[in-house]
């Protein structure tokens, strides 16, 4: 039995308002299941439970503001057998009240032993090798769905499942748009001023000829329906992800113990809300996506962001930020790094501009790519390499697939 | 001491048994029936035979890895010793010990140690127990001249003397610690003098003469049983064979071996019996035949012995005691 607490979704989050329960008492929940929505200074966030069990009691009514760490519900361990769970509680009580077990009558002693054995049974879990578990996570394979009653799951089985499997995005529910909250603007202000005082930024910028990429995209989209069309932003995100694989120094965090690179690439995508404000939710595990799935998950992310239906992990795991203000006609974006991230990359508007090709001067679609990096973690050389990689990928757009 | 015909026959029989038994062992080793290390006692038989003669059944014996002679003289059967060297369950240590680790608790024969001087502290402890229990027994501890260099030798002698324990220490000085001559390893080569420095009654005797060793042993055991504390005997002897089977004997001259062979304890004893007119009555031929028969029987017994089941491999690591 355990308490389900108000999670901390960021270093600067102190409390949140419980908006809605998505489960009721008696419901069975599984690890990772979203069971509530909370309203934070950064928006409405779905929060998930971290164990399998049964919701025994909901402790907090909706619309209540709760501090981080406050118990919100009681979850009973073991989803399958309430009786066994009850027995466990009983056993604990007995043991507690009879510290000296020699004084318990033999009959009762037997019961305690039996109850203990039940506990062991009840803690049955998926047997999966450590490396298989890790790989499953990388590939997005949901191991709870695998049949593992008999055998141990090994790496080969996970790899056989092969292709990327990420949970299908939930259908966007019709829901009244939440009012713009003053809190959000405040949160952004706090983060940005902290960034500017703490982080020594360096800035780099380069012009990128987008003509090859856009033409390639045009060809690609000819074969696809309107819903399936790939937008330039997906291509840009994809170029960033691939460049980060080659220059991983910019992907990660600056923490108390210094520079820490992340294996996973979770780019935070700056998304403007219709009623003002900006959120940068993470496109989780973008390193495992191809161009098509990048587009697919990106549009899902944008939709959910605008509906205020983001996951808590999407609000906390960003390893770099991508901001694209090109649709507003801005040519260059000099971003401010979101701590504890290491960099922010900005893409400006794509404009017709004179471009030298060989000895000839011609007009091309040109975009400014700008990088702001944390000078404590990297230097301009790394930043330049990174921009150069992005450029190379955009000049060879078939590699972005 | 009185040397009647019966004792004469017994001594001769036992010394010859050890000699022939070990000669057969060499053959069996060469045929790979016996493996591991095989250290031969040939040349030193007089000491084991005479020492064991001085003991009662209640006394205890601790020896070295060169202990076939002691086991045989103590009365451990040829069959069980041979079976042990064949690695059979019928062996005196169930095939677990081999040549270097012969044990027989019923004969109060405590083996069989392959660590030089390793048995000396044990002998002190066994004697201590006898003293505490007020049992009038002797513990005999035999070791070679090599053991004298170990710290345990000195520590054990001191303890036994300090606590006046009933131990008979017997050093078989065959002049070589394995392959290194005593003169290269000891500043004082008169070993009995080391014991004397611990205030232990000690003397050096001719280890090639069964009669002399028997006399000295008898007196020593009586002395100890009278409660006078430990006694130390240094027996000068010589092994006619190499240290173990795999030894090229680069460390000693052939001439030296030949010289010592003139003092062969069997030969010395035969001559002595001739002098006193007992030899013709000993009937050496009959003894030789009886020994051959006994050894043949032992080899056959060992050949036909059983191998321990593999399931029992992990036996005897801990005592099989029932805890109810």
């Amino acid at each position, binding site marked *: 039995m355990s308490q389900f607490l108000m999670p901390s979704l960021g270093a600067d989050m102190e409390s949140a308002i419980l908006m809605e329960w998505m489960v009721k008492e008696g419901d069975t929940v599984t690890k990772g299941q979203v069971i509530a929505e909370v309203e934070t200074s950064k928006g409405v966030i779905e929060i998930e439970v971290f164990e399998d069990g049964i919701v025994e009691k909901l402790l907090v009514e909706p619309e209540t503001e709760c501090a981080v760490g406050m118990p919100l519900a009681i979850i009973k361990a073991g989803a399958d057998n309430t009786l066994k769970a009850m027995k466990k509680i009983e056993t604990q009580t007995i043991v507690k009240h009879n510290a000296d077990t020699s004084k318990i009558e033999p009959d009762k002693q037997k019961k305690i032993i039996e109850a203990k054995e039940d506990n062991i049974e009840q803690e049955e879990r998926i047997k999966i090798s450590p490396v298989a578990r890790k790989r499953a996570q990388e590939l997005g394979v949901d191991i709870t769905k695998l049949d593992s009653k008999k055998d141990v799951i*090994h790496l080969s089985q996970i790899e056989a499942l092969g292709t990327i499997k990420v949970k299908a995005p939930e259908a966007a529910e019709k829901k009244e748009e939440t009012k713009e909250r003053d809190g959000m603007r405040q949160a952004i202000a706090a983060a940005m001023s902290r960034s500017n005082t703490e982080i020594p930024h360096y800035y780099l910028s380069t012009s990128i000829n987008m003509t090859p990429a856009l033409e390639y995209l045009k060809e690609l989209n000819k074969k696809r329906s309107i819903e399936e069309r790939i937008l330039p932003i997906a291509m840009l995100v994809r170029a960033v992800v691939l460049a980060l694989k080659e220059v991983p120094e910019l992907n990660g965090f600056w923490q108390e113990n210094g520079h820490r690179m992340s294996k996973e690439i979770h780019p935070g995508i700056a998304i403007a809300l219709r009623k003002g404000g900006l959120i940068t939710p993470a496109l989780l595990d973008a390193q495992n996506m191809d161009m098509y799935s990048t587009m697919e998950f990106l549009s899902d992310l944008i939709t959910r962001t605008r509906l205020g239906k983001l996951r808590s992990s999407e609000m906390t795991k960003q390893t770099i930020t991508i901001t694209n203000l090109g649709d507003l006609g801005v040519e260059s974006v000099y971003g401010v790094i979101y701590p504890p991230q290491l960099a922010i990359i900005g893409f400006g508007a794509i404009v017709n501009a004179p471009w030298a090709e060989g000895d000839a001067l011609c007009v091309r679609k040109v975009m400014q790519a700008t990088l702001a990096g944390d000078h404590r973690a990297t230097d301009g050389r790394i930043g330049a390499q990174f921009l150069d990689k992005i450029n190379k990928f955009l000049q060879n757009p078939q590699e972005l697939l | 001491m009185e040397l009647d015909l019966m004792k004469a026959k017994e001594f001769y029989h036992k010394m010859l048994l050890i000699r022939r038994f070990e000669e057969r062992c060499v053959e069996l080793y060469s045929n790979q029936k016996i493996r591991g290390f095989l250290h031969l006692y040939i040349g030193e038989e007089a000491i084991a035979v005479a020492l064991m003669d001085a003991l009662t059944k209640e006394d205890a014996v601790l020896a070295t890895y060169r202990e076939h002679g002691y086991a045989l003289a103590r009365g451990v059967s040829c069959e069980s010793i041979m079976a042990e060297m064949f690695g059979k369950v019928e062996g005196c240590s169930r095939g677990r010990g081999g040549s270097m680790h012969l044990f027989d608790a019923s004969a109060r024969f405590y083996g069989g140690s392959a660590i030089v001087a390793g048995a000396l502290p044990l002998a002190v402890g066994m004697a201590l127990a006898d003293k505490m229990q007020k049992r009038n027994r002797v513990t005999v501890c035999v070791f070679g001249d090599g053991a004298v260099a170990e710290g345990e030798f000195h520590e054990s002698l001191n303890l036994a003397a300090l606590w006046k324990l009933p131990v008979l220490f017997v050093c078989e000085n065959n002049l070589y610690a394995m392959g290194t001559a005593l003169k290269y390893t000891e500043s004082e080569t008169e070993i009995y003098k080391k014991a004397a420095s611990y205030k232990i009654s000690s003397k050096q005797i001719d280890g090639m003469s069964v009669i002399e060793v028997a006399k000295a042993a008898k007196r020593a055991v009586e002395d100890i049983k009278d409660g006078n504390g430990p006694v130390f005997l240094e027996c000068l002897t010589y092994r006619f064979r190499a240290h173990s089977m795999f030894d090229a004997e680069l460390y000693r001259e052939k001439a030296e071996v030949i010289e010592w062979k003139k003092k062969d304890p069997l030969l010395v004893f035969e001559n002595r019996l001739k002098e006193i007119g007992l030899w013709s009555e000993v009937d050496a031929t009959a003894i030789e035949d009886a020994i051959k028969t006994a050894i043949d029987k032992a080899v056959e017994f060992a050949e036909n012995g059983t191998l321990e089941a*593999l399931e029992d491999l*992990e036996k005897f690591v801990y005592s099989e005691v029932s805890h109810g």
Partner: protein
Amino acid sequence: MDNTTTYREAVREAIRKAMTENESVFLMGEDVGHYGGCYAVSMGLLDEFGAQRIIDTPLSESSFTGAGIGAALNGMRPIVEIMTVNFSLLALDQIMNNAATLLHMSGGQLNVPLVIRMATGGGKQLAAQHSHSLEGWFAHIPGLKVLTPATVQDAYDMVGLALADPDPVLIFENALLYNSKGSIDTQGTPVPIGKALIHKAGKDISIFTYGISLFKALEAAEALAKDGIDVEVIDLRSLRPLDDETVMNSVKKTHKVIIVDEGWKSGSISAEIMARINEQAFYELDAPMARVCTVEVPLPYAKHLEDAALPQPQKIVDTARTMMGK
């Protein structure tokens, strides 16, 4: 030029070379002189270098090992030979309480450049006082380095490496290897202390081993190859320091681990390797790690029992097959 030689001769050659090059090197131990060494390693060296530098000692393990430490403190480079690892127990006090600790106790003032060589291992029916593999025990002790040459090349190289080291180094020579043959390169740069070697690359299972077990593992690897199981065989070479990097890289490659060690399992070097893999590469494992070690019994004399007690190629093959689900 044919450089084929035996393990025994390789050790002897290395000692000879060191003694020729450096006057402060000397050899001391039981029967190393007139007898020529219990395992004939030092045969002929007495004639060549004289009794001043090839020193026969009494059976006084504690004292002559301690004397080696003293000589090392005072400018010499002694090689102490202890006849077998079993006898080293009599010198354990000096090894542990002096050799391994003096540098630290003295606040870095007194290093002990001592080399101790000894024979180790079972398989010759020498029973329970002459057959054990205790090198893992010594690897427990900070301040010591523990080398386990398996190949003829290492038998040669490790003497020189150990002598060049400023601290006490123990070399464990498996007695069954003395007759093994191989070629040696006496001119090349030896693989340093603390570096493991991949003897056979493979992708399915990593076998970590050392000493004589290396050859059992290689034999098993051949048999397993016929089943389509491609094992990687790694000779640890040094038990202290352990080459974590090579071990973990191999684990990352194969995700499966078998450790072959003639020591017992409990509290052993095999247990230590498992613990380190658990600490450093847990998420790389695709199956529980397995060990082929000596059965937890003092080694018995009878051949069939001794064979059953020791690691054997077939046991390695069986363990690997089980691990691969075959």
